[in-house]
């Protein structure tokens, strides 16, 4: 009821645009401050966030971070070990591969591919999934039934197998990888949002909005959406990690971005041949995947605890 | 002193939470004689249940028993090892809980749950007590199982469940509330315990069923000559069932005495307040009086007397001094500065 009254106040009180912006801004800042206070409590989540941020910055500023070229072979520095091993040097801190390419450089450039695909796929999937989830949960009935059957069907296909088959059919390339992953990815935000909408629909504030004559679209996007946003943010964050793993697996199977563009999965696959002697060529890019995904997952769990206590185990 | 079955001395159980230390039981002492029925009353959150669980050492994280003694037949249960205490649980001291649906295991049949209790302590059947079940040979084990099953049937009959053979194969969700509470009593009493702790045994039940269950407990208590600690917030139940009453408030005993003294001549203002809040048929035109305010938060207690924030008689002395529990007659104690002045 309080919520309803607060909203009624918003309708009634006339304020200039400037006042309104100021009010919204102030509220946003205090929300962010409160969020940070909760998030900071979880030390692992802070570490996870730092890892992810570091990779993002490295990926963006790659050409300034490393003097080497990620693609061009350098036959004067073939199969150099990392700096901590005998024969290693700071010129190539993580060593080089069989073509003399610097592993550190390739990892940084590889982060571009992984992070790009991770964020773009999850971004699109969230938009599609949230919309369908809202519609499915809000209207119910036949639309809901159809969407749910489609989801059930897509769930039956192991993600990696479906993605592999689709990339195989669509052909390689960044765009097709994004499409192949999107094919299934949207169902995750969709399921979460639908569940939340079913709960939110029964709440008082929705009733209240309906009694003052709000339309369906207004209720869906203005009343319900803000309330399911928290869980969407949490789920989407966690999904970025999964998508990065999928992309890495695809490129490990030779169905990722086309060589010689460095991608973490294909670096591991290429380096496999030398696993007996130059183990760093394949294991270090794998470690980069692990660190990134772990960072994202730690962040996601921190977000969950800070934003949405009811999602906690 | 040797005639006490149970003596609780200065028991302290604290909960270590994020908001600070909650002293749920803070220096509670009382005694129970053989065959006696003692009621512990108070509002919810005053430490009754935690006291009961502390006696059996069943306090869960983040709670911890930090001090005191629980003497059962003169042996300190708090000093026993986890293995030793198990010999007391179920066999010497049994316990029943408020909500029988959540207390019976949903995935085990009722029969299994009774038989388990009996087998644990080899309750009857003339078999040697204390022999670990695992070491018995298969023949013995089968005989024991049959004995236990027979005893379980007996118990089901004793607590008044009809068609026990058939009902033993059923699951708890197939029983009604009252029947479930009977099953729980059957489990608790299957090993002839000397003491039964009943934690709000009738609160979750319908009024008519409440009376039946109380009647059953009374009858079994007499038959088995067993002491009972009955925890409740219902003074009506206490009047019907108990010989002695202990009134608790915010983790402390505020008054203790024979049931008639407490009900008809309460000395502590809290006890008096509880009595006034019972609706009576005689004067139904009088509005029900309640005690103003709420039980203080246990990690944020007022200074001095804990009840003073809600007490109509409180003065400056009550804020300064923590009232001791003193005898006002040989078996009636009160912890109130105003009452003993």
């Amino acid at each position: 009821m309080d919520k309803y009254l607060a909203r009624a106040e918003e309708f009634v009180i006339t304020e200039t645009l400037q006042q309104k912006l100021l009010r919204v801004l102030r509220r946003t800042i205090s929300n962010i401050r409160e969020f940070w206070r909760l998030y900071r409590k979880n030390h692992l989540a802070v570490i996870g966030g730092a890892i992810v941020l570091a990779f993002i910055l490295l990926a963006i500023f790659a050409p300034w971070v490393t003097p080497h070229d990620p693609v061009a072979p350098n036959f004067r520095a073939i199969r150099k070990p990392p700096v901590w091993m005998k024969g290693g040097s700071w010129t190539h801190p993580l060593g080089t591969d069989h073509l003399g390419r610097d592993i550190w450089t390739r990892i940084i450039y590889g982060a571009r591919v992984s992070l790009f695909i991770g964020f773009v796929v999850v971004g699109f999937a969230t938009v599609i999934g949230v919309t369908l989830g809202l519609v499915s949960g809000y209207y119910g009935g036949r639309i809901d039934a159809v969407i749910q059957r489609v989801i059930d069907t897509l769930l039956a296909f192991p993600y990696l197998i479906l993605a592999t088959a689709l990339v195989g059919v669509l052909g390689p390339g960044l765009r097709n990888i994004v499409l192949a992953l999107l094919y299934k990815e949207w169902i995750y935000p969709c399921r979460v949002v639908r569940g939340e909408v079913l709960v939110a629909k029964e709440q008082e504030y929705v009733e209240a909005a309906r009694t003052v004559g709000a339309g369906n679209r207004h209720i869906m996007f203005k009343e319900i959406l803000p309330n399911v946003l928290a869980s969407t943010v949490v789920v989407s964050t966690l999904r970025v990690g999964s998508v990065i793993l999928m992309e890495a697996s695809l490129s490990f199977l030779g169905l990722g971005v086309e060589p010689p563009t460095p991608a973490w999965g294909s670096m591991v696959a290429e380096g496999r041949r030398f696993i007996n002697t130059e183990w760093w060529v394949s294991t270090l890019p794998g470690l980069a995947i692990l660190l990134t995904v772990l960072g994202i997952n730690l962040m996601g769990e921190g977000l969950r605890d800070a934003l949405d206590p009811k999602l906690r185990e | 002193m040797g005639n006490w079955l149970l003596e609780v001395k200065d028991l302290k159980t604290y909960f270590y939470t994020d908001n600070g230390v909650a002293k749920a039981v803070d220096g509670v002492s009382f005694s129970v004689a053989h065959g006696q029925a003692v009621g512990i009353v108070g509002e919810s959150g005053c430490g009754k249940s935690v006291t009961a669980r502390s006696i059996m050492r069943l306090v869960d994280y983040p709670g911890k028993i930090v001090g005191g003694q629980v003497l059962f037949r003169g042996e300190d249960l708090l000093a026993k090892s986890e293995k030793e205490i198990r010999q007391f649980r179920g066999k010497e001291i049994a316990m029943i809980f408020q909500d029988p649906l959540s207390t019976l295991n949903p995935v085990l049949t009722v029969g299994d749950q009774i038989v388990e209790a009996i087998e644990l302590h080899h309750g009857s059947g003339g078999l040697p007590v204390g022999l670990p079940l695992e070491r018995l040979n298969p023949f013995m084990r089968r005989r024991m199982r049959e004995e236990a099953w027979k005893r379980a049937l007996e118990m089901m009959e004793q607590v008044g469940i009809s068609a026990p053979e058939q009902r033993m194969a059923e699951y708890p969700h197939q029983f009604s509330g009252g029947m479930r509470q009977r099953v729980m009593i059957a489990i608790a009493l299957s090993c002839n315990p000397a003491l039964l702790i009943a934690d709000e045994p009738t609160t979750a039940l319908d009024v008519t069923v409440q009376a039946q269950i109380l009647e059953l407990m009374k009858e079994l208590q007499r038959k088995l000559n067993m002491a009972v600690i009955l925890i409740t917030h219902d003074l009506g139940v206490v009047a019907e069932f108990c010989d002695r009453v202990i009134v608790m408030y915010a983790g402390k005993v505020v008054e203790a005495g024979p049931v008639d003294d407490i009900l008809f001549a309460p000395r502590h203002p809290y006890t008096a307040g509880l009595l006034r809040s019972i609706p009576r048929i005689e004067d139904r035109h009088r509005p029900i009086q309640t005690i103003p305010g709420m039980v203080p938060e246990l990690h944020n207690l007022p200074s001095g007397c804990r009840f003073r924030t809600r007490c109509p008689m409180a003065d400056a002395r009550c804020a300064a001094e923590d009232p001791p529990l003193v005898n006002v007659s040989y078996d009636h104690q009160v912890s109130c500065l105003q009452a003993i002045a």
Partner: protein
Amino acid sequence: MDKILQRLLQTIPVLIGISLIVFSLMHLTPGDPVEIMLAEVGYVSQEDIELMRAELGLDRPLIEQYFSFVAGILRGDWGTSLRARVSVKELILERLPATIELTLAAIVVSLIIGIPAGVLSAVRRYSWLDKLGTLVALVGISMPQFWLGLTLVLIFSVGLHLLPGGVRLAFDIPAPPTVTGLLLVDSILAGNWAAFWGTLRHLALPALTLGAPMSALTMRVTRSSMLEVIRQDYVTFARAKGVKEMAVIIKHALRNALIPIVTVVALNMGSLLGGNMIVERIFSWPGLGQLVVDSIRTYDYPVVQVSVMIYALTYVAMNLIADLLYIRLNPRVRI
């Protein structure tokens, strides 16, 4: 009984959906699938293209194609591999046992690791053991499987020479006669203990790799489910009866906690099945996963379609089993 029947009926739309998606796989290709397929072979004439189109039925209307596809599947006529020129059925049945053996082993591994670890973590919650376990589990679900596989090979095969890092059985051990196709079962049937031991050793690393993410997941679910159950009154009541702590945890708590575990594990079975492709590739395992990857790369569409479908059907079947198990474990939903 009604519940089971109802559950079976529910799978029908999903089965239809699966057939639609699988069928449409070939038609999603930008361009002419036949030309792409034949381009692999090299120079082909227009006649060859027409011939192939007729063989695949691509010259008929789409609806007709779909129904003949479904009819073929149901009849057991799964088409012919374009590359190997043998029937798809033969190709798949030859590969299936290896994958089944690996997958079952991985499930066993994930349950053996995941459930006890989760129980231990819940019982000792907030201890350093719990914190470590939770972190390890998080690393487990954040780890690329191919990297784990390679690392295990690097340590146990290349480094320590403890376990073999590939194939199902060493060449110098005579394989048992094929009965079920599962080498472990076959070697027991034949009484061939050398082969049994050899198979087990070969199975160790792949099963561990495939089961690792699932173990981590099982551990997390078990932990949270146990934490929920341990709080319940019936657990305290069991203690009050004098039940030993071990029995309280296993008989009273875990039996209840298993109910949600079964569902969550089954729902996440997809990651295990998808992991087949990766693990089989790393360990040169002659299974279905490798077949899928190879046929995708060579545009062998009939093989791709059927094997992808088999994976989907396996998932559906596993979830069906899990639901039946759920009913079995939970007397409250039994009729």
